[in-house]
């Protein structure tokens, strides 16, 4: 199926009016074509209006059945397609003024429990990333951990630990309007991932979100959203070699094509 053919199927795709082969072909194309993916996202919002129109009284038994099943259902972790699992030499958590070095994957034996903060889960296998916290010129916090990140709950525990440590340190930045934000970056030879953590961002009006942006050689591109309110919020962002900074703005939900000034904060991805 040529890209031209796929373009003509966008409307039918959004309406789920394709057979499974055609649907797969369109989805393959969407991974490669940002313009098409943007159009699909726009038209999906229209389909959502078609859906949202009708509400019906829901059988009471459905709620209890759903809650019971959810209680025993494992959640998927966020998709990290570009992060390769790698075992990394562990070091203690310590703020330093040294520029971060690229973390290369090396095989290491499992870490003794004493080297890791107690609340992090015991690793079952060595799947880890070396993580470097980057501040706006104040130095770097080097954090390493080895843990099995295959459940949302375990990821959540690790994220909580990292977020708290980093947000409390000089490696975090104040956000205009309230709150603090920090970027914890990992880089391997081919690509990177940044963990953006924030805390105490003010609540936003209905329909508005905190939008993250990747800034660099290319035009700023959307990189996920954060929520306001007390407590911490975070988002894992795959980064490319040409990205230099992460920025935060407030945008209408689902409509961000380019940042609406002012930037609430901008943090470099590397020192």
């Amino acid at each position, binding site marked *: 199926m040529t890209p031209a053919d796929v373009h003509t*199927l966008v409307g039918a795709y959004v309406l789920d009016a394709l057979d499974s082969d055609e649907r797969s072909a369109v989805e393959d194309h969407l991974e490669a074509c940002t313009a098409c993916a943007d159009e699909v996202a726009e038209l999906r919002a229209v389909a959502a209006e078609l859906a949202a129109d009708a509400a019906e009284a829901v*059988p009471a038994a459905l709620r209890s059945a759903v809650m019971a099943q959810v209680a025993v259902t494992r959640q998927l972790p966020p998709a990290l397609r570009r992060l390769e699992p790698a075992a990394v030499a562990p070091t203690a958590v310590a703020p330093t003024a040294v520029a971060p070095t690229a973390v290369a994957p090396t095989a290491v034996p499992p870490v003794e429990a004493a080297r890791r903060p107690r609340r992090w889960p015991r690793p079952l296998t060595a799947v880890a990333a070396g993580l470097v916290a980057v501040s706006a010129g104040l130095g770097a916090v080097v954090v390493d951990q080895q843990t099995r990140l295959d459940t949302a709950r375990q990821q959540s525990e690790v994220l909580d630990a990292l977020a708290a440590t980093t947000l409390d340190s000089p490696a975090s930045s104040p956000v205009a309007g309230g709150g603090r934000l920090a970027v914890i970056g990992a880089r391997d030879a081919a690509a990177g991932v940044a963990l953006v953590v924030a805390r105490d961002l003010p609540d936003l009006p209905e329909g508005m979100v905190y939008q993250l942006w990747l800034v660099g050689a290319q035009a700023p591109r959307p990189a996920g959203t954060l929520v306001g309110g007390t407590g911490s919020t975070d988002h894992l962002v795959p980064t490319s070699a040409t990205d230099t900074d992460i920025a935060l703005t407030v945008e209408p939900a689902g409509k961000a094509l380019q940042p609406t000034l002012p930037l609430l904060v901008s943090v470099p991805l590397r020192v």
Partner: protein
Amino acid sequence: MRAEDSPPPIRLVPAHDPPLSADVLLQRVARGDQQAFAALYDLVAGRVYGLIRRVLRDPAQSEEVAQEVFVEVWRAAARFDGTRGGALGWIFTIAHRRAVDRVRSAQAAAERERRAAVLDPRDDDRGYDEVFEQVETRLEHERLRNCLGGLTEVQQESITLAYYRGYTYREVAELLDVPLGTVKTRMRDGLIRLRDCLGVA
């Protein structure tokens, strides 16, 4: 008395915090918050079930599919990005796709063949005209009804047959006796016209 001399207007403070949006709730669900999930369920279950029911008709199957949809929302919440559309759109996309997949798999091969032989859409025992009566009586939003009314006949019929009945574009082309290319184009430009009329995206 000038406006600036007036006392500030009295602000009514709600007794409870305003309900959280689907977007906020879904972010919390992504981190394992089951209370947020329950709140999200209460927020959208009526619309999710209603949408599935409209496509599937059968209440028991609709309940099954609705359960699958909500469990999938729980399971995949951390995969939702938020950049390309909001939480509601994501949830409805899951619900609609599952309803459509179920309604197609439920059709016996014989019924498919029979429908393919139908020349007059009104002979289809699903009741072609019934589609619009049902959509009309269930439409509570004036805005949506007006915007649908602003589409051409083929645009409107293509979209409603596909979205509310689960027909593929090929089946729609047969039912409407319209070329495949035309149906594909009308679905897309009909959605675009709806988008402009509704002021979404």
